[in-house]
């Protein structure tokens, strides 16, 4: 040591301390996504969706911005109790539901009837405070297999400022990278449109684990199958419909009585894809009707209780857990960002319209 000059002997411990602290700070910044490769973070994902929307609608959800709150109850048949020990699925259990019916897209003033995708989000709250949140859609399978695919789609389908339409070259490249999108496009082009939320089937396209009392695991997907028969809406009817057609239709139907959906739980067979929501399972899989959802009231979302709920599909009661489907974690990440941003806008008073303090233009 004596070979080192005095200043170096004094300096190296200081340098070592600085190095330790800098290293920790760098790992922290990397974990936060502030430095390093531009990996896909929840923040960047949400930014991409906002950019795709063209603008931010303060206080509204970044996706599925237009919707209406609904309330009712879920009555368990007990048919799924052998698959999952969740108390909400026990025979005869009645659980209050706070839900939301919506259309895809961010614009809170979009014409209802023109939305290809409609959605149902539900929050079931058990007596013990446990919750089951689920966000389902009218499509039978997800558009892409992975979060990266969804992000790539958001970027590629961003309207070109010159034409107002997505760049065809980018869309072709997207389809080459994520060929499963073609299947979804085919569905969007050919599947008939329903004329009401009330006769639409909503599918939770992600797989989950149902865990029974003995700890046995079944992989399942669930859907809400309407008790009303499907009724189609043709292009001319859709074009002529009022902007709030679905909301008005719902109110009119609820005024006549409650609306019901059966919760159909489909159990995967051994080789079925449980980590890819873009792949539907064969039609002949075992199904059980776990119970019936009954909705009997709706409220505008600007003042309704669903406004301040994040329908995060990873909020689950004991007896149900996530599968390895990567889209579930990404949904939780992005929904949380969307929720934080819009609640912040509401708290700062930047969202008079979303909170019903300024009527829609």
């Amino acid at each position, binding site marked *: 040591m004596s070979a080192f000059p005095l200043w170096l002997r004094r300096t190296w*411990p200081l340098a070592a301390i600085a190095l330790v*602290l800098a290293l920790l700070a760098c790992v*922290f910044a990397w974990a*936060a996504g502030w430095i390093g490769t531009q990996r896909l973070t929840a923040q960047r994902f949400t930014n991409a969706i906002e950019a795709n929307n063209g603008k931010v609608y303060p206080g509204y959800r970044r996706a599925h911005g237009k919707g209406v709150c609904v309330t009712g109850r879920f009555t368990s048949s007990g048919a799924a109790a052998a698959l999952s020990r969740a108390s909400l699925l026990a025979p005869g259990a009645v659980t209050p539901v706070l839900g939301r019916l919506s259309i895809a897209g961010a614009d809170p003033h979009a014409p209802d009837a023109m939305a290809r995708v409609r959605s149902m989000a539900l929050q079931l709250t058990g007596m013990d405070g446990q919750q089951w949140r689920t966000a389902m859609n009218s499509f039978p399978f997800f558009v892409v297999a992975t*979060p990266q695919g969804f992000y790539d789609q958001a970027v590629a389908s961003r309207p070109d400022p010159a034409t107002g339409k997505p760049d065809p070259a980018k869309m072709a490249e997207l389809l080459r990278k994520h060929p499963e999108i073609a299947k979804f496009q085919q569905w969007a082009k050919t599947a008939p449109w329903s004329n009401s939320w009330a006769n639409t089937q909503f599918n939770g396209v992600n797989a989950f684990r149902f865990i029974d009392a003995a700890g046995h695991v079944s992989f399942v997907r669930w859907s809400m199958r309407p008790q009303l028969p499907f009724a189609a809406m043709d292009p001319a009817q859709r074009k002529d419909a009022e902007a709030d057609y679905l909301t008005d239709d719902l109110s009119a139907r609820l005024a006549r009585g409650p609306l019901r959906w059966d919760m159909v739980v489909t159990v995967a067979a051994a080789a079925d894809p449980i980590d890819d929501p873009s792949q539907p399972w064969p039609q002949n899989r075992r199904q059980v009707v776990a119970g019936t959802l009954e909705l009997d009231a709706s409220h505008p979302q600007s003042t309704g209780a669903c406004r*301040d709920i994040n329908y995060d599909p990873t909020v689950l*009661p004991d007896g149900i857990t996530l599968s390895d489907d990567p889209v579930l974690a990404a949904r939780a990440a992005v929904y949380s960002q969307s929720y934080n941003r819009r*609640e912040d806008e509401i708290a700062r008073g930047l969202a008079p319209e979303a909170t019903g303090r300024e009527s829609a233009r």
Partner: protein
Amino acid sequence: MSTDTHFNLLARVLHWTMAAMILAMLFIGVGMVASVSLRPVLIDLHRPLGIAIGLLALVRLGNRLRHRPPPLPADLPRWQMLGAHASHWLLYGLMIAMPLLGWATLSAGGYPVTLWPGAVLPPIAPHGPQAYALLHGAHVLLAFALFATVLGHLGAALFHAWIRRDGVFSSMVHGPRRTSGE
């Protein structure tokens, strides 16, 4: 035999256990809000770990109030003495405040505060955007403050260990030894 020169065993065990927990917690927290793949796993760790830290911090505070810690070296500059005391009480404050704020944030966001499957804590704040935005913002801001304080604390500890070599660092590493040469 006096334990005046060293922290007592409970203080030392709690210090190093909680050091690992808090450091892990800060990385889990900042990672879980960014990650598009690990959020569910990390948040399932974040909630019970946070509550555990809060409970251990209360045990630690009781121990700290009942047992005087070893005094800092008399020749320590006054500003360093003040910094040490202020940062220690700031750490105690944050160790107790952060879990409560996290719990309150989830309550204000309408989320169930699930520690493990089936175990849900009751809400401790009203559900609504004003409370949520305020509590969430405070939780994030104080997390950065906690990380900065932890870095400062670590830097100061290493300064005592490697530069001053005044026994302050070893007072938290081991108990009093009969051999001299500390």
